[in-house]
Each structure stands twice: as C-alpha cells, then as structure tokens.
C-alpha cells in the first residue's frame, strides 16, 4: 500500500509541477458561454461559473497546496526538533518550562486560533509582502506553529532514552562538547519517529490550508487552491457537482497517499511491529 502511495503521490506531484507545461489553457480565461459545463474533451474537468477551465486551475492550485503542506511541515519539524532537543539534553527547569509551554500549545484550539491570527495579521502582511506572498508566509508559519508540539515530544522522548546509552557516554569520555554530542550522535539516531511525524504533518497542513480556503479565509479569492475551489463549488452543488467532486477528490487522494506513506514508514522504522 505504501509503495503504491509513493507512486500515486509522485504522479500527483509531477502532474502538478509539470502539467501546466503540457496543458496550456490559462487559469483565468473567462468564457461565459461555457459556464458550468461538465467534463468534455475541451475541458477535461469541466468549467466553473465563470467558464474558467478547471483542470488548469486545479494544476495551479495543486502547486500551492503542496507547497504550503511541505513548507509548513519543514517549519514544524525544525521548531519541534529544536525545542525537543534543547528540552531533552538539559535537565531540570529548562526542560520543565519547555514542556509546560508545549502542553499549553497542545491545549490551544487550533482552528479558532488559526482564524484569529489570520484575521489579525492578514492586512499587515499583505501590505508588507504582497497579497499572495504575505498570506503564504502567514499560513505556513501559523500551521507550522500548531504542529511542532508532537515532534518536540517525540524528539525529547528519544533524547531522554538515547542520552543514557553507552555510545554517548563514550563520546563524552573522549571529550565531546554537548553541542557536538547532540549534533553528531544523538540527533541522527532520533530522527526515525520525526520522519513519520513529518509525513503526517504534510497531510495535516494540506487539510488545514484547504479548510482555511474553504472557509473563505485563506489565499486571495483569485488563487485557485483546492480548498478555494471547493468553497466556490459548494453553492453550485446541484447543477455542477463535477466541480466540487474533482477538487475534493484531489485533496482526498493526496492526503490518503501521504497517510499511507506515513504508515508504511512507521511500520518500517518501528521495531515493535505487531505480529
């Protein structure tokens, strides 16, 4: 299943990245005579209410959705690993404080705070970085900020157990400083669960970005991310179901493939496999 998912994900990624070279219909070519038409040879996924071709819009939006997913994962993993490593290698009050902060963040309701932060900071970032760039940075940072906690806990747990092993003791006896111990010895061995958490984070980030766009609060309205396509499609469900179905199916397949890959990775890396 996992291997099949890697293939599917690779196909989706390559379609999204290279498809716009092959399918050269512009994403905002408005054509009122072809409004809401079902899939045909001219428009393989149909058209939306302005007559814009859906396949082209989905290919464009896919790039953004995947970019947000991966960027948010990188933010979450970097933040989580940093905090988990610092917490794991130091004992006592630093550890306690960092863990209390982690618990606090875990208790925060994710979506309401996401919406709150976007509401508060959207105009400021738009003025600073332009509408798309600003929202992209904001969404990536905020989604990443809500996903670092499990990574931090995993890294900290790994550190706590690896810290007592003999090879660490040996390295310390040879005179290794603490940063070198962390970077060269402990951290590379603790990355297994982090990779698994990372794949789950990509899926969660894609769903979070789609949810934001679906609520109308993500990217500017002319950028056709998959969630935004669903937001536009939901008012035309009875007369043009193909619109919502294609967009939703794309999100579903991507997230499903990523989840299967994550599960396969976990099975491969976890020594306690259930027999």
């Amino acid at each position, binding site marked *: 299943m996992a291997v099949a998912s890697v293939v599917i994900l690779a196909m989706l990624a390559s379609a999204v990245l290279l498809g716009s070279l092959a399918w050269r219909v512009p994403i905002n070519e408005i054509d009122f005579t072809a409004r809401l038409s079902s899939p045909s040879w001219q428009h393989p996924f149909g058209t939306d209410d302005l007559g814009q071709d859906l396949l082209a819009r989905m290919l464009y939006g896919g790039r953004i959705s995947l970019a947000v997913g991966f960027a948010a994962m990188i933010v979450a993993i970097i933040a989580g690993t940093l905090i988990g490593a610092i917490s794991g290698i130091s004992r006592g009050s630093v550890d306690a404080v960092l863990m209390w902060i982690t618990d*606090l963040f875990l*208790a925060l309701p994710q*979506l309401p705070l996401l919406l709150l932060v976007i509401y508060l900071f959207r105009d*400021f970032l738009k003025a600073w970085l332009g509408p798309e760039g600003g929202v992209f940075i904001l969404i990536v940072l905020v989604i990443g900020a809500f996903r670092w906690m499990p990574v931090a806990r995993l890294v900290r747990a790994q550190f706590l157990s690896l810290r007592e092993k003999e090879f660490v003791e040996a390295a310390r006896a040879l005179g290794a400083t603490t940063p070198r111990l962390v970077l060269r010895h402990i951290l590379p061995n603790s990355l297994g669960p982090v990779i698994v958490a990372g794949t789950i984070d990509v899926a969660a980030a894609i769903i979070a970005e789609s949810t934001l766009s679906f609520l109308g609060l993500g990217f500017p309205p002319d950028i056709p991310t998959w969630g935004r396509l669903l937001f536009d499609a939901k008012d035309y469900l009875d007369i043009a179901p193909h619109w919502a179905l294609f967009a939703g199916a794309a999100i*579903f397949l991507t997230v499903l493939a990523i989840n299967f890959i994550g599960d396969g990775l976990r099975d491969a890396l976890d020594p306690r496999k259930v027999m």
Partner: protein
Amino acid sequence: MGKYILRRLIIALPSLLGISLVLFVLLALAPGDPFGELATNSNIPPEVREALRVKFGIDDPIFVRYLHWLVAMLHGDWGFSFSSRIDVDKLILQRVPTTLFVVGSSQLLALAVALPVGVYAAMRPYSIFDQIANTFAFVGFSLPTFFTGLLLILIFSVNLGWLPFVYRVDIPATGWHWYWEYFKQGIMPVAVLGLFQAASYTRYVRSAVLDVIRLDYVTTARSKGIGEGKVVIKHVVRNALIPVVTLVALQMPAVFGGAIVTEQIFRIPGIGSLLITAILANDTPVIMAVTFVFACLVVVFNLLADIIYGWLDPRISYR
C-alpha cells in the same frame, strides 16, 4: 477520588490563564486598531469612539489591559458586539447548546463505532475484517470533513431528498414529530464529524487493544474459565481504554475545529459559525470571546477526560 478531582481542577486553572494570556498577547500584538471598523461606521461619532478607547483602556500599558480584560471576562462582561448590537455573552449563550449538542453526539457516535470495530479487529489481527477496517479508517481520516459534508448533502439532500440540509433551531412542530425533525436534520452533521473521528479512533483502539491482549492477566483470566466476552469487556477493554481516553481528550481542540467547518456547511447556528461571521464582519469583541470560549471548552473536556481516566485506572487517583 474527590481529592484527585480537586487536584486536576487546580492544574486546569493555570492552563486557562495561560491560554487567555496567549489570546490577549495575540490581540495586543496585532497591528491595526480593533476599533478601526468603527471608524468607517458613520453611526458612531468620533467622540463616542474616543470614549470607547478610554473605557477599554487601549492606550494603557499592556499588563493593566490584560488584568482589566481578564477581570471583565471572569465577571461575565464580555463586551458588546459591533455587528449584532447585543451583548456578546447573550449571543454566545444562545448558540453554545447547539454546538455542544452536535459535538457531543458526534463524539459519542465516534466512540460507539470505533470501540466495537477496533476491539473486534484487534481480536483477529490481519484477518479480512481487520484489513477492511484499516482501509476504511485510512479513507475516513483522509477525507476532509468539508468534502464528506458536501458529498452527503449532494447524495442525501439534492439527489435523494431524504434529509434537510439547513439546520433550524426553531422547528414548527410538537411532540414526537419535533424530535423526529430534530433527529433528521442532525444526522448529517453528526455523521460527518463522528465518522471522521471514528476513523482515527478505530486505529488507535486497535493498537491499544493489541498491546493489552497479550499481557499475562488476560491469559490468567481465560485460563480461569471466564468466558471470552467477559474477558474482553471486563479486563481488556477497560485497560485499553486508558490511552484511548487520553487520545479523545487530546483531540478535542481538533474536534472543535471540525465543528466550525461542519457548522459552515450545514448552516448550523453554533459558535463556530458565529466565529466565522464575526471574522468576516471584523467584529473583534465577539472573536475574542468565542476563542476564549473554545479554549475553556477544551480545558473542560480535558478535565472530564482526567476524571474518567481516574475512574478507569484507580491507581492514578492515588498519585
């Protein structure tokens, strides 16, 4: 048990304070004026705006503002909504029961589906039932809630016409018919939320039961001649429920997020859709109050989970 509950309550309060601090810091850091919306509203003359600024102490140092805000929140003085023109606490109180009903029923549905399926799948690992259950679980939590909601609306309301898709709190019916109408309109939102959660819970229940079922006391119970059903229910499930309860409690923030989306799709008048309308209308007091309510609900549910935890595992209440 009573002392344990008291201890958990005392621990819950600092988290509530911490959350309120984070919320307030976010608002304070935000550029722009929370009363900026009023500037464009011609009904409000500049003197009133100035008076509001002084009253809310916008220009005071941040620590003073936080204390004022916290005291006001705790007194129940949650401010006045800009767009709805009524007190925020009345607005929220009108809508909280609906949200709690939908979220609560969906969690019950999720557990009612996940527990039997997960336990049965774990009793026969890697069998056909287990493979199918696993695949359904994956499909279930890969489908975003808004997509399942739209699909269900498409199938059941548009094509088949069996279920209403607009949620109404004031159903013009009485007695048995009222309950039936309420139930019919509630099926889809509760099913959407509940099945999404059930998918992730099933996998977790399965792995928790698999961890427990190989332990010695289960073998002892079986060898004592206790029937399989009783062994499963009294020994296995009760111990496997401990990590599951932790997971359910940890998932509460995500469930409320899912409730927001579901309320938007099905037009349920709960606090989730209140948050969205308030954001779109730039209605700051409502946004702050609703986010605070969400945070409180999360803390309350965590507390509830701790209490159930203490009941399930008596060793915990002695710590």
